[in-house]
């Protein structure tokens, strides 16, 4: 018997963007549809064993709350099956069911009634709930005088003391104060030991990492990953890093846009093609940090030019120059060139970390002009993008620099 079993769960929300669309559907008796369907969850399947604590992570709008709402039964799935073994308690929005005019004590009774408890059961629970909430004598004050954190504490105290087999918590843990958070984590651990099943959604990766056995990663309503907490957190963090450093097609950093489109060129020479070649000699734009990368620039000098400077630059997605190299710095004299040529710039180990990078390529009359005069023979700016991937041991940040760790015991350190 599984505690939670979800099969091919799909949820569509109907979006009525114009007034009258709903009315049109009414008068055509739903024979014609005027709404747009927004798919919030797409073909989700998973099982949770009793006694397991499972977390749901993902970006805003990835479907975490929708998933929990469907499991709690407050909204119906569009397709798919859900089975829950046992009684469910849930805390989706801590303030729900509380009435600001009434005291905390009265609100506990109201909320317990909403969660299906009889008054004698509520009376039995009340002292424990009161104690857990840490509200003290404030419990008899009207709820409107409570702080947001106090409301959450009371809501949470009720939700976890109502008898349950499966507890669903949506994004509320980090609202209470530190003492309360510790209480919650302790309570959740105790529930796990008693074979209760808990499902939490959270943005706080450290929260879920503290007490979840497994995680579900949702990405735009699809199940991107399910697995051990460490593996999923790593995958998610890496995915966020990647997106943070990625470059979308044709998106040039704003402050360089003017520069990129207005470059005067001298003519005479033209860049024909730029290719990126990996360590195996294959043309690609995907590389791994620390492996070989060769930039091949093919150009045509229509007139004879003398010792041009060929420059290659790698820029981060925000336009910051990360790495640059040119023929002058390396003391290479190309001599007099006229006709078709190719130059190869080989990086035996490309030591920059995960991200998308722009590559600028230019042919300049000399190095000095490439800095100041801005009049190259030809230049391709923000035209090429290479994607670099890193592995965890490569480290974080921008630069790959192999590091070694040593631990020494300091016996007589004063």
């Amino acid at each position: 018997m599984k505690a939670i079993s979800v099969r091919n769960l799909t949820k569509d929300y109907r979006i009525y963007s114009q007034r009258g669309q709903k009315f049109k559907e009414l008068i055509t008796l739903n024979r014609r549809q005027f709404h747009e369907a927004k798919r919030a969850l797409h073909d989700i399947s998973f099982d949770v064993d009793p006694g397991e604590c499972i977390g749901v992570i993902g970006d805003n709008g990835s479907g975490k709350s929708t998933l929990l709402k469907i499991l709690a039964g407050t909204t119906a799935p569009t397709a798919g099956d859900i089975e829950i073994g046992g009684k469910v308690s849930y805390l989706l929005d801590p303030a729900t069911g509380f009435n600001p005019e009434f005291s905390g004590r009265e609100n506990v009774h109201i909320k317990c009634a909403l969660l299906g408890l009889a008054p004698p059961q509520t009376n039995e629970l009340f002292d424990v709930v009161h104690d857990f909430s840490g509200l003290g004598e404030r419990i008899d004050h009207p709820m409107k005088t409570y702080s947001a954190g106090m409301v959450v504490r009371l809501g949470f105290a009720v939700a976890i003391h109502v008898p349950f087999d499966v507890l669903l918590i949506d994004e509320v843990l980090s609202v209470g104060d530190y003492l309360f958070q510790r209480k919650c984590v302790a309570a959740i651990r105790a529930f796990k030991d008693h074979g209760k099943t808990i499902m939490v959604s959270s943005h706080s990766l450290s929260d879920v990492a503290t007490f979840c056995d497994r995680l579900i990663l949702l990405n735009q309503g699809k199940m991107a990953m399910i697995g051990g907490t460490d593996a999923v957190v790593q995958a998610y963090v890496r995915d966020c890093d990647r997106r943070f450093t990625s470059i979308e097609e044709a998106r040039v950093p704003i402050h360089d846009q003017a520069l990129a489109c207005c470059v005067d060129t001298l003519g005479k020479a033209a860049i024909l093609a730029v290719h990126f070649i990996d360590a195996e000699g294959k043309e690609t734009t995907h590389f791994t940090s620390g492996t070989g990368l060769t930039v091949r620039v093919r150009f045509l000098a229509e007139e004879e030019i003398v010792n041009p400077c060929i420059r290659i630059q790698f820029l981060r997605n925000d336009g910051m120059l990360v790495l640059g190299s040119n023929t002058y710095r390396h003391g290479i004299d190309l001599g007099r060139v006229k006709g078709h040529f190719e130059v190869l710039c080989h990086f035996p180990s490309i030591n920059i970390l995960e991200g998308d990078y722009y590559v600028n390529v230019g042919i300049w009359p000399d190095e000095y002009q490439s800095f100041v005069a801005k009049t190259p023979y030809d230049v391709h700016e923000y035209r090429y993008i290479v994607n670099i991937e890193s592995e965890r041991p490569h480290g974080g940040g921008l630069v790959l620099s192999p590091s070694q760790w040593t631990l020494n015991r300091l016996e007589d350190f004063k």
Partner: protein
Amino acid sequence: MIRRVKVMFQEVFAQRRLLWSLIQLDLRKRYGASFMGFFWSVINPLLQILIYTFVFGYILSVNVGGNAGAKNYGIFLFAGMLPWIAFSEAIQKSSTVILENKDLVKQVRFPVMLLPMHILLSSFLHEMIALAIFVVILFIVGQGPPLLAVGLVALFPLQLIFTLGVGLIASAFHVMYKDVGQLVNALLLLWFFATPIIFPLSLVPHWLQTPLLANPLAPLISAYRAALLGNEVPHLWAFIYFAGFSLVVFLIGVTLFHRLSRDFADLL
């Protein structure tokens, strides 16, 4: 359809404690929210009755039969207002009850039908209080109700299912279309004057009497007056008509609400 009604009643019965809590909550909001909550909840309808009595009973001297006069008119009006206020209040409040409790509908799993239902029962309880006050008044003016008043109890279930039916239709549509809120108010105003509450049917021109009798509330109001004031008991057919109408409206209401309530959480 019959099965759906059965399922609905089972659901509501299973949650009867929650229903009762909701009713208590509503009564407390009504009577306990302000300093003189109970006073206000009685004084407003009473004031309305006094004003109508002054205007129609005294200034216009509407003849309601028996010994004409303000006293008679007041009692005549009160008897008609009792079911009307309960009905109109229940409809008005049920039309907005889902929207007002939208957090509950979205975040808590319970039969949403309980929301309009608790409004209905709370309004009905309120009517019972008013009815008790009215009976006391009747004794004070020396016109104690006839024994037939007990028969009113038989009418309550019909009144309840009729009100519930209309209330469910209004509340379900209000979630879908916000305009329904305004529409309900307009229709209730129209309905008030299309029902023989402030005037006796006998004063209505003959050609208008039949259409007014088609109004399902007309037999209800007449029955109240017959039971409380000893007026002429309506024809059996009027009762059958009201019963049939109530049943149909009730079934439509339950079916419609059941259908639409599945989407409430998504539409709110």
